């Protein structure tokens, strides 16, 4: 069961909303599928992202995947710990392995995201 207080994308990002700030990471399912993560490439603070735009890259020992912005907004913070400890994405994907914080441009976009039950169903279907 995925954390009930988050919203999800079909590309396996999660979003935690607090007022107009959204914290973004990738799910435990995604981290497990990728295997040992060795590098996370994140955008510059201040960059504006459109929903579904690629915001970075996550690299595991044998694969590289793009990361997609779940919501439109401006990058206000990135997780500085990931530069030295990318494995946090594997060990604590919903916590210390967070990737960036967005100042949400359009709160209505949240409605398009999956709820926990919807995401559970997505990963159950494979």
């Amino acid at each position: 069961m995925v954390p009930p207080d988050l919203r999800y994308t079909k590309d396996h990002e999660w979003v935690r909303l607090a007022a107009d700030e959204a914290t973004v990471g990738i799910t435990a399912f995604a981290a497990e599928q990728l295997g040992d993560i060795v590098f996370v490439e994140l955008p510059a603070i201040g960059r504006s992202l459109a929903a579904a735009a690629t915001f970075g890259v996550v690299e595991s020992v044998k694969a590289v995947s793009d990361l997609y912005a779940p919501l439109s907004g401006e990058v206000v913070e990135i997780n500085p710990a990931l530069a030295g400890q990318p494995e946090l994405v594997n060990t604590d994907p919903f916590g210390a392995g967070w990737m960036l914080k967005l100042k949400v441009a359009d709160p209505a976009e949240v409605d398009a995201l999956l709820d926990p039950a919807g995401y559970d169903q997505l990963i159950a279907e494979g």
Partner: protein
Amino acid sequence: MPYGPHTLADRERMLEAIGITSVDELFDDIPANLRASRLDLPAGMPELELAAHLQALAGRNRTDLASFLGAGAYRHFQPPVVDQLLLRGEWYTAYTPYQPEVSQGTLQSIYEYQSLLAELVAMDVVSASHYDGAAATAEAALMTCRATGRQRILVSRAVHSHYRQTLATYLSGGDLELDQVPVVAAGPLAGTTDLAALEALLADPARPVAGVIAGQPNFYGLLEPMAEIGHLAHAAGGLFVAVVEPVSLAVLEPPGAYGADIAAGEGQSLGIPTQYGGPYLGILATGDALVRQIPGRLVGMTTDLDGQRAFVMTMRAREQDIRRERAASNICTNQALLALAASIYLATLGPHGLRDVAALGAARAAELEAALVEAGAERLHPGPYLNEFLIRVPDARAIHARLLERGVLAGLLMADIEPGDPGLADSLLVCATEVTTGAEVARFAAALKAELGTVR
């Protein structure tokens, strides 16, 4: 027995399915003059006759010439140990195995290449090689675009013309732009990159520059103000790419010391003969900051479960077999055998030996300059050079041809490579290395003196 797996009927069904009538239509996008024409091969020959025929063809090569040709490919003494080791069958594949860690020897050879070159360029990371110096330079340009998110490259006009053409090819077809930085026309800095022009080109706010590319030594053999070029690039938020000649790095400041973000260069001069037009060796190096942008592969050293030294394919996740169309490059076959030749050469000579090679070449070039000036030629540029420089002679094309008849290959006729540049008219790019002999210099000078005497 036909070797093609598809019958005529199969092919017709496939053509019909995609709505064309002949296979040739698939190639319509390629201009007709560039398509392969039918090979016009003569009838077969018995092996003995063929050997004699090929020997006769090979006999047309001039091996008697005193050569002063450099221009991007340099003659050097190749210690026999380089070829002897290179000819071992264990090395006979250009490819790193897809399960690379089973081939510890291959990985170790690549690791040692990376380490030797990293020391030479004084940078953190060297990729496991590219096709040639021009390809490596173009990859460097693309790295600067990816790293900065900008789309414009500035290349000094004094970078090798073939490299600039390769850059134009790599940068075409997308949103990327390539502009040339002129060289200073006259005065003590003539022939080097024009810093004022560079500054002006960098100042266009609508077209921010990703990378500035300059060569050291430049194509005319001159030494460039690399640190200043790098400062200007960095001040404008761009990156700086140094195109280097590896033997020169034994005596010149390495790119890591003057602030280059990326170094690219041709590795041919490291124990690889001036064979045909290749295969050669593309060197590409950078710092830790851009390690994720470097195309190709990187081999690292680690310890295995038993604590023993082991070599691993540390980074190749950005390659096309994994990233497909988002790969850092789709042209990154490494030149493992030639990288190995460079490694053996460097390990054989050692730092002192390489310094001797570079210094002796520079000394020979100084002798050459004195002899040619004495014979009546003049240097085109006054600035310092290492082992290659431009001379001007009246009617250079005719003189070049007549010197050839006298057994002297008088370098490169610049009009052949830069036909549109009036500043380079009637000039010859001449080069000396440690294999140039005093007798050859004397032969060139005497022949030139005789020719200039008849002209006047």
